[in-house]
């Protein structure tokens, strides 16, 4: 019986060997995949096992961590003014993961970042729990509040930049949401999350400032004017152009493009065309610059690429198109679309004498012991227009504010304010209420401390559509935001 017995023994050995091979497979070969699997709760348990680092605005944290009595997650994220800051912070939920700054800087906030290795080692030796680092933002609390309160119940977005550095000062999107409402993983959290996700009318979790692209409308005329100046089509904004009113779109028999203000647009110079927002002039200029030239100009301002602030913003687009479409794109009313951030970048490049700074909202990352791990230095994204042309564009944009008597709010006369309104049509054949736009900047003796873009989606039937205009709805918000920044600068 011994021969088959030896074989049975060998067979049992093979069974054990198979087990050994299998455990090596799952614990060594597959280990990483299993460790980071989305269903593996250890990932989020780890994330909430220590208090998260904070996101800092004006030296004060706008986030917090609250100890819970939950067996799995020891800490839960809290936010002050969560609704106001949600477009910046995003959320950090035990059940639904992280987004925006909470997501991009997750490893710093949890303390898992390799750059915190030294800190963690010291903490381990001294018996302290691992701590997260802080994210210090460039945002301005007063400007953000002005933007958020200005939007109020309306849908829309506000972006304010410091044109000199590219630092983001305000980033508001409405309607917003309170990330605290689903920070945990209980039934309430699920209900809140599903309600927010399911609200297709309001899309509260859509970050309109960075992730929504709108037809830019007349605010795009600034880009068109820049293209005309840079391409030598006109040398001076006071030089008369040669476009009829109404303008007949190229390659069409009789598609007329009219103007809102009668009798001033025929052959108008760029200064007046800007003031009266002449469609005929800018469609003509766009046509004469050509599709290629317009794309090049738009791209120098930052179109056709995503920007990382470090939160990603969607790419604004200026596509290749046929001549009539390209002419219409010159007045921001074709297939070109822009994020509010993009239009703020346009205003800031003009205000900064032609130099476009790369937008960013994280100033520095700080270790728990207050050592700076990473400091953001302002970077030039490019020089879309020359200094001379930028100053000409400033004159034209200031003509818009001063010539049309747009209310400057509380901003004093010693500050130069330039702006451009926009009323972008939407829906097929202009069937829905338009978007109200306003882009602007302020310039003081120390250069330009702020440029703003505001877009508002007017609800259907909310106001008479003839009354909708950028100067009426969007401009006051922009003025308030700029005033808040200017006040802080002086104070």
């Amino acid at each position, binding site marked *: *019986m*011994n*021969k*088959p*017995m*030896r*074989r*049975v*023994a060998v067979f*049992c*050995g093979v*069974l*054990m060997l*198979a*087990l*050994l091979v*299998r*455990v*090596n497979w*799952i*614990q*060594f070969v*597959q*280990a*990483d*995949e*299993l*460790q980071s*699997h989305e*269903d*593996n*709760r*250890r990932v989020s*348990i780890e994330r909430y096992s220590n208090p998260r680092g904070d996101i800092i605005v004006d030296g004060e944290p706008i986030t917090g961590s609250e100890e819970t009595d939950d*067996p799995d997650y020891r800490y839960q994220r809290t936010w002050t003014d969560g609704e106001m800051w949600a477009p910046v912070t995003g959320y950090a939920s035990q059940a639904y993961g992280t987004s925006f700054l909470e997501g991009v800087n997750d490893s710093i906030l949890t303390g898992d970042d390799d750059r915190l290795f030294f800190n963690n080692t010291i903490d381990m030796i001294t018996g302290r729990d691992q701590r997260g680092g802080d994210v210090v933002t460039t945002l301005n609390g007063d400007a953000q509040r002005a933007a958020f309160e200005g939007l109020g119940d309306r849908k829309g977005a506000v972006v304010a930049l410091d044109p000199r550095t590219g630092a983001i000062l305000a980033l508001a999107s409405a309607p917003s949401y309170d990330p605290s409402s689903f920070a945990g993983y209980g039934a309430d959290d699920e209900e809140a999350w599903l309600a927010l996700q399911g609200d297709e009318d309001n899309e509260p979790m859509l970050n309109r400032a960075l992730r929504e692209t709108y037809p830019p409308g007349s605010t795009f005329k600034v880009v068109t004017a820049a293209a005309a100046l840079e391409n030598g089509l006109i040398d001076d904004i006071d030089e008369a152009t040669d476009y009829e009113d109404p303008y007949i779109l190229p390659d069409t028999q009789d598609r007329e493009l009219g103007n809102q203000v009668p009798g001033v647009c025929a052959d108008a110079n760029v200064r007046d065309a800007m003031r009266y927002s002449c469609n005929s002039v800018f469609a003509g200029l766009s046509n004469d610059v050509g599709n290629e030239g317009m794309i090049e100009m738009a791209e120098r301002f930052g179109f056709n690429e995503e920007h990382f602030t470090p939160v990603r913003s969607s790419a604004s687009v200026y596509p290749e198109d046929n001549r009539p479409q390209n002419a219409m794109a010159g007045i921001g009313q074709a297939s070109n679309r822009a994020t509010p951030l993009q239009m703020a970048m346009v205003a800031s490049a003009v205000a900064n004498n032609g130099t476009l700074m790369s937008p960013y909202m994280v100033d520095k990352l700080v270790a728990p012991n207050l050592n700076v791990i990473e400091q953001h230095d302002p970077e030039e994204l490019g020089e879309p227009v020359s200094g001379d042309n930028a100053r000409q564009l400033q004159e034209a944009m200031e003509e818009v504010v001063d010539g049309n008597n747009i209310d400057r709010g509380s901003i004093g006369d010693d500050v130069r304010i330039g702006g451009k309104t926009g009323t972008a049509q939407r829906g097929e054949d202009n069937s829905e209420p338009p978007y109200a736009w306003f882009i602007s900047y302020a310039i003081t003796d120390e250069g330009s401390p702020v440029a703003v873009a505001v877009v508002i989606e007017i609800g259907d039937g909310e106001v008479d559509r003839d009354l909708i205009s950028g100067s009426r709805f969007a401009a006051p918000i922009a003025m308030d935001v700029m005033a808040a920044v200017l006040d802080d600068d002086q104070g």
Partner: protein
Amino acid sequence: MSSNNNTTVSPGGLPSRRNTELMMLVFAVVIPVFAYANVGLAKEGSLPAGMLGYGLGLGLLAGVAHLAVRRWAPYADPLMLPIATLLNGLGLVLIWRLDQEPTITTDRLGGPLAPGQLMWSTVGVALFIGVLLLLKDHRLLQRYTYISMVVALVLLALPIVVGEEINGARIWVRIPGVGSLQPGEFAKIIIAVFFAGYLMVKRDALALASRRVMGLYLPRGRDLGPILVIWAISLLILIFETDLGTSLLFFGIFVVMLYVATERTSWIIFGLLLSASGAVLVASTNAHVGERVNNWLNPLDRAANDGVTETAQAMFSFGSGGLFGSGLGQGYSRLIGGIAAKSDYILATVGEELGLAGLMAIVMLYALLIERGMRTALAARDPFGKLLAVGLAGVFAIQVFVVAGGVTALIPLTGMTMPFLAQGGSSVIANWALIALLLRISDTARRPAPAPAPSLDAEQTQVVRP
């Protein structure tokens, strides 16, 4: 009789190795005590309060078992008792460690289970001693061949009649005041006794009276009968108790013992064909078994209600453990949820907290124990002892493979428990009895032959001087 033999140790015989066993036992007790301290330090930052009592308890059990072996089975294999003690001790630590997790230690789940497990271990060791004390020679069991068969069948059928269904498998019998019992654990030993007795008698008929068809020796119809009966019974278990594990164990051990008894490879092919066809048939018709197979094929898939399955949770446990594990008390195997973390899925805790290194060490302990059993079978001198030892070692091997393979998703999961390690009274008691039987056989095998009787022939050839 055997006690007489004890007194006639010949200087040329095998050493008894009892002192080796004692040395190993010290390690087998000390390692779990350190593990216990480790859990306490990790969870609370201090040595756990019950450490002294626990260490003494385990030490006492090991000591008494060792004395029993020294007294009643002095030539038994020196490794099996220490390995069983180590596994049982580690099992207690792991269950106690999981008892520290409030989410899986609720009243509904029976509260802390380690004290109960310690009690069952005591009962198991008592049975171990009882077997060594009362069963002076394993060949006595041969008398009870057919009684064993009846008892085994009754035990196997019991859950169908009075059992309760837990987690989709009907393998439990509730005894009022004592708790739930898994008769299958005891049946596996008794069935091995029956097979050993039956095959010892029938082996020649099965091996020699067969027809050769296409290179295979096919048994005669009348010899085939019992095999088909066993196959049918194992299928019935599978269908009525939806217990893949017991069924596999039952049939697997029969094929192994048949092969060893008859030395005919055809039996293995025949047996594999039968079991494969049975398994496929049941897997495709039975929803519970079908689901298990599905979980096995796609271990990480979500359950029907979009929840994370136990299988997936166990896989995450193993994966998160990595090479060296999180350390005892610092893993999250409680996410598996329910009582399964302490019983069926205990290996997931080993994998997560002790890592690949620890899990491989545990598998090697089982492999070593099986190897000692096989060695006992090879060394045994009587065919019944040989068959019984190979049956017991085989049943142990198949169980370890089926359970460990199941939780690591190497094969579909079945409702059995890891011998000694997992929570469960029946399992720990039955496995102590199994070890006692193996020790008894190995004692008989390694015992020195009795001193030769005085040779009469030699005396007769003496020169008789008048």
